[in-house]
């Protein structure tokens, strides 16, 4: 079986269990369900709340550089720390955090394959204790926006056919039957998708236990819709978090050289006056 393009970014639950006492490793839980960490977590893991700590709600933006530096410092991380991210729902928001750490140049970030559910399903020990680590000095790099797509990038991609667009939402959202996933508030005025985008659901990249599929299957999954290493890709969803998971798969597991996450996503595009859409 072929290896992922960057196998170093993925660790197994057993690896994490063996490194719980390793001072060079900081394990961080980031969940969709922001109460999950309080319920119980991997011993020694800290929790980041994506709603409060991984976005700038006033600017509708990712974390500004200074805020990320504070978060990393208060989490006891320096530039050399190995940050292992995991979370619920197949590491959905763990990948969102991974993407932001890469934007600000953190070198050693890894995802725990299978995430929180796999850890629980394996019956591994969990803890209620919220650890505190001594703050460390942390200076982030300038933002690397080459892995992030903004609205003009998407418009240019449509006009010039310069990038493949992949909509990673459910078929019902892609076709405009639903404005938001069942049980979640809607965030846009109309349903549909960006013209020319193909639809490959983000979770198609995972097995039933939440771990990533083998590289051959992933390659086939995306290549079958024209998403290959030969062409730049822009991934999007509703608010940019599901697509960060697909961005991770394309960029690090398949090694595609030019992949961007459009975090404005359907919430931005779907609300634009006169922006073309397809259903």
């Amino acid at each position, binding site marked *: 079986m072929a290896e992922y393009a960057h196998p170093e970014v993925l660790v197994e639950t057993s690896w994490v269990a063996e490194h719980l006492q390793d001072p060079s490793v900081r394990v961080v839980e980031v969940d*969709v*369900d922001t*109460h*999950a960490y309080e*319920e*119980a977590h991997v*011993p020694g893991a800290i929790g980041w709340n994506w709603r409060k700590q991984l976005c700038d709600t006033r600017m509708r933006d990712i974390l500004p550089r200074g805020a990320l530096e504070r978060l990393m410092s208060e989490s006891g991380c320096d530039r050399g720390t190995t940050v292992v991210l995991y979370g*619920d*729902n*197949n590491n*959905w928001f763990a990948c969102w955090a991974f993407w932001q750490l890469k934007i600000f140049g953190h070198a050693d970030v890894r995802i725990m394959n299978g995430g929180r*559910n796999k850890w*629980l*399903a394996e*019956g*591994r*020990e*969990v*803890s*209620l*204790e919220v650890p505190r680590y001594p703050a460390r000095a942390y200076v982030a790099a300038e933002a690397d926006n080459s892995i992030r797509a903004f609205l003009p990038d998407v418009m240019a991609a449509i006009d010039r056919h310069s990038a493949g667009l992949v909509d990673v*939402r*459910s078929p*019902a959202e892609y076709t*405009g*039957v*639903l*404005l*938001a*996933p*069942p*049980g*979640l508030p*809607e965030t846009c005025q109309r*349903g549909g998708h960006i013209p020319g985008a193909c639809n490959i*659901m*983000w*979770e198609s990249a995972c097995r039933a236990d939440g771990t990533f599929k083998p590289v051959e299957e992933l390659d086939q999954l995306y290549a079958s819709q024209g998403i290959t290493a030969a062409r730049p890709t822009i991934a999007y*969803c509703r608010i940019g978090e*599901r697509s960060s998971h697909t961005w991770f798969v394309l960029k690090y597991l398949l090694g595609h050289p030019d992949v961007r996450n459009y975090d404005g996503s359907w919430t931005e595009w779907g609300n634009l006056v006169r922006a073309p859409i397809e259903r």
Partner: protein
Amino acid sequence: MSSTFVPQGYRERSDTVEGWPVGIVSYQLGERWYCKIHNVSPGAVIERGSGDTREAAEADALSRARPKLATTRRLRDSIDELRTSVSELDETLRNKE
């Protein structure tokens, strides 16, 4: 009270609630059972619950998930009705032409 546990009885099952497929995850931590209801796609947690038994935890979570799922169903139905009425209006106008 101990601050560490070994999770037990982890189970995932599927069901349909208010017309939507949902995933129901439950497990025991210490003496308490926990349950989460998530939409199958994208898998976001809709509601969570807890109880002295697995059944009680599921019932607790389901009681709160139902109203949210019903709201989405009503919204979807409204969109369908709106599209139908727009199509009918188009048809009427075409016939008049």
